[in-house]
């Protein structure tokens, strides 16, 4: 499943690139891209564990930039 999310408070471009790399390494993620300009995360991951993977992605983002939130609503 492929889904797009808005990223709030993504303030630094280098952090965006780091997040992209880190999210790609989460098991179950087929592909991920973080667009600093669009403030968007495109996540392509296993259907069954999508929610779980998304939570893990949020954890990874917080680690890199504490204020950055993946908007899931």
């Amino acid at each position, binding site marked *: 499943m492929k889904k797009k999310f808005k990223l709030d408070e993504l303030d630094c471009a*280098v952090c965006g*690139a780091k997040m992209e790399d880190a999210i790609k390494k989460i098991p179950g993620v087929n592909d991920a891209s973080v667009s600093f*300009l669009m403030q968007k995360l495109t996540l392509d991951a296993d259907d069954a564990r999508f929610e779980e993977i998304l939570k893990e992605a949020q954890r990874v983002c917080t680690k890199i930039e504490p204020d950055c939130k993946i908007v899931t609503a």
Partner: protein
Amino acid sequence: MNKKQKTVLWRILITAALFALLEALQRWGPLNALPTWALLGCYLVPYGVIAYDVVGKALRNLRTGAIFDENLLMTIATVAAFAIGAYDEALAVMLFYQIGELFQKIAVGRSRGAIKALLEIVPQSANLETEDGVTEVDPDDVSVGQIIRIRPGERVPLDGDVIEGSSSLNTAALTGESLPRPVEAGEAVYAGCINGDGTLRVWVTKAFEDSMVTKILELVENASSKKAKAEAFITRFAKIYTPVVTAAALLLFLISVLCGGDWSEWLRRACIFLVISCPCALVISVPLGFFGGIGACSRAGVLVKGSNDLEAAAKLSSLVFDKTGTLTEGTFSVTAVRALNGTEDDILRFAAAAEAGSTHPIAQSIVAAYEKTPDADLLRELREIPGHGVTAAYDGKTLLVGNERLLTQYGVAAPPHDAAATAVYVALDGDCLGIISIADRVKDGAKEALSSLRNAGVRRLTMLTGDRKAVGEAVAQSLSLDAVYTELLPDQKVTQLETLLAEKQPNTTLGYVGDGINDAPVLARADVGIAMGSMGSDAAIEAADVVILDDDLHKLGATIRIARKTTRIVKENIVFALAVKALVMGLGAFGVANMWLAVFADVGVSVLAILNSMRMLKKQ
């Protein structure tokens, strides 16, 4: 400016005021009497105001092990400056860092605004006809086969066919062409266009996610995933740049101190390195430049699928064209009428009357060329001979309208004729009256479009066609092409293209321009596959790297110019940012540069590079 940025602005103003006050007091004396600790305290107050968030983030990131974080490096640099007693420098560095960051954020925010405006072609709602009247719904919820209503001035929400009403559409969002296009019942409309002053009832033919406009948006938004070489380089570079510079700072300091240098002076120099260690200028401005370039193309009605395609388009030195439908109209029309006996009008009048009943494209082109209604009473005993033409009786004499074979069959000698066109002879009673030449016409303005390509730096223009040699060569000559290869089967086109690819100049690219219907393999094989995809042709969008939405050959030159400008800006930014950083680091190592200059090399360069990239976002 948003709320967060306003807060930062206030902090900057307060700090700047306090800083000026401290400097003034120090110059005029009263502060000099203070002991060092009190003076440090005086400077720490404004430092706290300006630096608390940076220091806070630095400490947080330190816990998670992010040692190459910009905040941490800035904190180390300023704390080190305090440690060596350079209070004013420590405060100034943090102050200017914040000013630069603020500028950078405002610039990025404005670019985002410009990008969003670019993408605001998505219709927000659709007026769906239901049993209880018309209701407003999300275009996503409308399914194929339902009927929607489009009121004057509204954006067309979904692709469909008009079943009632007529209006004119502004297709600028899709094709870049602002001239209104008239539509009436039976014609197709595309989402993203703006309706003129008629109300339309439209039968939806495609779900929202399959519509042209959604595809365009997805392509533009995802363009960053097909990274240009320059972008990929920056991504790799950014990963190693900060650690390398930080390590260099550490080495510089340690070695000099071990060699007996003045530790505070070398600490100051190492701090200069730390301040310049963020690759932000490049990481933001390079993708922004490509994004702007792709945006500029889409505003002109040209879809570029990725920044790598834009980069390749900038290096085009050789363009290969398909003939039918790309350089020519793709339809038959009368190109010349040659009278041997009688007037041209007579010849057309006879031919039109004879062909009026036929559905053959050649017959129809003759009727269209006559412009008047064919005279039904002129001829009697009309008889169509398939593959030959038409015979009829006029005033007791035999009239022949057809090809050479028809004339031969009736024992009439066919006069010589230009081989590049199809000839229709008109003969009366064994005497050839004249010849009508019918050919696929070269598009209006094709010649100018091609010569503008030469001005844009394309050196070689070639045409590949499956058509007859005489026809192909005539078109090539009228357009002054460099080479033409005719009578090619689709697989031979690929082979021929490969030969051309091998012949192109090193470090340049070759583009193939086709209509995307039967030449998908060739489009895919070329460095840059450019499809003349009339609106709605999915095949073209899939196969090509670049799609010219309204088939206008002039857009080719425009695309190349935008691509060149984009890559030039990107190169400028890379060279400028790296040169300034290297220079300041060099000066810093020899003790010539101060921290102020270092801040400029960091955030100043970043702001300048972003401003440079923003040129691509402006309307051209």
